[in-house]
């Protein structure tokens, strides 16, 4: 466990998906905005809601609630999209709500056990505990670039 990224205390943006509390590296987050009407993309997987115009940039929007079967997705004025900058791409993720920004020391992070959550452990950095609450830390880069998300041309 000597990967250099673990030496620096990370700050995480926490958000909820269904009943679970998740966290992603705050440095990957570009902005947070409300859910707008999307332009649907034909023959795309169901969790890809479509694309939006973010100040002239066309950004795909994924809904992790659909992808990981976390509760029933509904879209209202409280639905939030986290716009992330991952691997030189801008991608939006629909979440039920954004909670907080927390700093976690490496010792506060435990490796994720199998069957810990709806997410495959491959895409988890680990589990954190904040005020007695469990936080599932996503490796968002790995997740979004994975083949099963179908967000990028596999040839690229």
């Amino acid at each position, binding site marked *: 466990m000597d990967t250099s990224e673990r030496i620096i205390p990370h700050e995480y943006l926490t958000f909820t998906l269904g009943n679970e509390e998740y966290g992603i590296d705050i440095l990957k987050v570009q902005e947070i905005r409300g859910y707008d009407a999307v*332009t649907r993309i034909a023959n795309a997987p169901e969790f890809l809601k479509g694309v939006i115009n973010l100040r002239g940039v*066309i950004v795909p929007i994924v809904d992790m609630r659909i992808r990981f079967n976390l509760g029933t997705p509904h879209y209202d004025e409280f639905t939030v999209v986290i716009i992330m900058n991952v691997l030189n791409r801008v991608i939006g993720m629909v979440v039920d709500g954004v909670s907080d920004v927390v700093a976690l020391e490496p010792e506060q992070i435990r490796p994720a056990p199998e069957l810990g959550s709806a997410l495959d452990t491959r895409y988890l950095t680990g589990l954190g505990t904040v005020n007695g609450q469990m936080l599932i830390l996503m490796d968002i880069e790995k997740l979004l670039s994975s083949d099963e998300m179908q*967000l990028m041309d596999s040839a690229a």
Partner: protein
Amino acid sequence: MTTPDHHNTSIDLDRFNAVFFEECAEHLADMEHILVALDPAHPDGEELNALFRAAHSIKGGAGIFGFRDLTVVTHELESLLDKVRGNELGLTATMIDLFLEARDAIAMQLAGHRDGAAVDQGVIEDICRRLRDQIETNAAAAEASTSSHVPSAEPMTGFRRLEIVFSPDNDIFQRGVRLENLFNELAQLGDLSVKAEIPEAPPFEAFDPEVCHARWIFALDTAAADEEIWDIFEFVAEREQLTIITRDEQATAAPSPAREDIPAPASTPAEAAIAPMGRRAYDRDETAPGAFGRRGGEAESSIRVGVTKVDQLINQVGELVITQSMLSQMAAVLDPVLFENIHRGLLQLERNTRDLQQSVMSIRLVPISIVFSRFPRLVRDLAAKLGKQVDLKTVGEATELDKGLIEKVADPLTHLVRNCLDHGLESPEARMAAGKDPVGTITLRASQVGGRIVIDVMDDGAGLSREKILRKAAERGIPASDAMTDEEVWQLIFAPGFSTAETVTDISGRGVGMDVVLRNVQALSGRVQVSSEPGAGTRVTISLPLTLAILDGLSVAVGGEKFIIPLNAIIESLQPKPEEIKSVNGRTVVHVRGEYLPLLPLHQLFNLETAVTRAEEGIVVLVDVEGEKAALLVDALLDEHQVVIKSLEANYRKVEGTAGATILGDGRVALILDVHALLRMR
């Protein structure tokens, strides 16, 4: 950390290096250009000078930026070039070949530094050695020939070397005297070299740029009388400001009047250094008008800007256009009488943004000569390899198109030119037997037709053979029949895996040719056409959009979504009557003006819910791509726009049936349909 020394300051150096690499590439391109056009029997002195300067610039830059290895070849090249332009050595075809090889070696070294490509040191050493050999062997030969030549030369009467010292008044510049005109006139009298001296410079504070402190010393080999020289200085200098001294009667071998064209052998190297090239001696200065590297006034008035900056500008202007159309849409609901000023202002804004967009787009346009200029070399090398004689003609090199397109069109064009050489043109013997000029012609022609750029690649070779193509198609299992028209037969050559060359060569004919060309051009929203006449030649025409950045389109509504159909694909749109809808083999077709067109319901292709599922309820848009027609079923037609094409791949991936996306006036994203791909989707 074991980074090499120069990496410590690499951040800044990288930037400078990039500029150096770019300049080198330009110099190399110029060298190639000149070398290929150079006629060994009658080399143009100015071109030799240009070659020398290019080599010299690369060497100088390489020295400054610490690319020592680059200086090695350039140094040898420069030495040989210097001898040639100094008329010490006569230019030979072998030398030109060698120069070209040296150029390639330098390009290889450059690629090594820039991209980390492999550099073959053996080639470098070989080139250096051969360049040196040229100097030594030819120098020996030249010496032998001149020593026998000089004494036999008829000494011309009255031919002498003059030294003219011209010490003008201090105010000569203020009087508006053009010294270069003086020099020109003197140079017409004979071989001239000029030297400027400043006998007494004033202290720095007293220096005035308009006051002349210099004097000039001319060395002139001429048969002209003193009077002619006085005449030249008539209005410029008083008698006492000019001294004419006769240095040597019969100074050099008699210069022929046509000296500019025929390089006369200079008597000895030492003398050649003093007065090498007549009036061109001062022309060598890079600041001389028309000298290489200056190209009129253009160099001064252009700046080098990174493509990313230009693209950023284009994107931002695209944003502006979207914002502007958003505003127009919002204002459309306002009362035209009450808000007349707003409407007028918005109209003005629309005009201004359009103009701005056009100007910005034009920054990206570059002349196609950038691509064409690589072909003389290619043709020269290939023709030599194939034993064919070819004359390459380029027409319309100034035609401009988008930089992004230029880069991508280069490969297909290269392929086509190779095909012309390899398959199109016959051998000189076969041409003569057919009563044609043994030298074949390949013509590259670019022109702008409407909103498109048309590039023709033509040869005057044997033309396509209908029988051969049909036979080959049958062999390859490509569906074909004798009943096909010529047009249709020619299209067969674009089928994957098709190749008609009798023997497969390493130049073309691996059977990956034309289908790749077609695919590459189609990827640029372009079209390819072939026409051919037996015995007279073949013409391949590529037509491309002017730019990839904007598109004229029709927006249509399908189940709550909007799509853009490129205008250039649309023939017409109509509401079909129920009796015009027919079913053929379970597929719906629309009967329009005697033609049965397959119906493509967009809502089905894009999985959208819509109330309009029957053709007679909606609108059909008739489209035509490369002669293939279809009817697209949409709910309604909305508007005609000029849209800015955005890539979906930047943040997502390619979506089947689309050529990208755009942002509409209301801020929503709309997909741009790729009609050609749609036809393949059904």
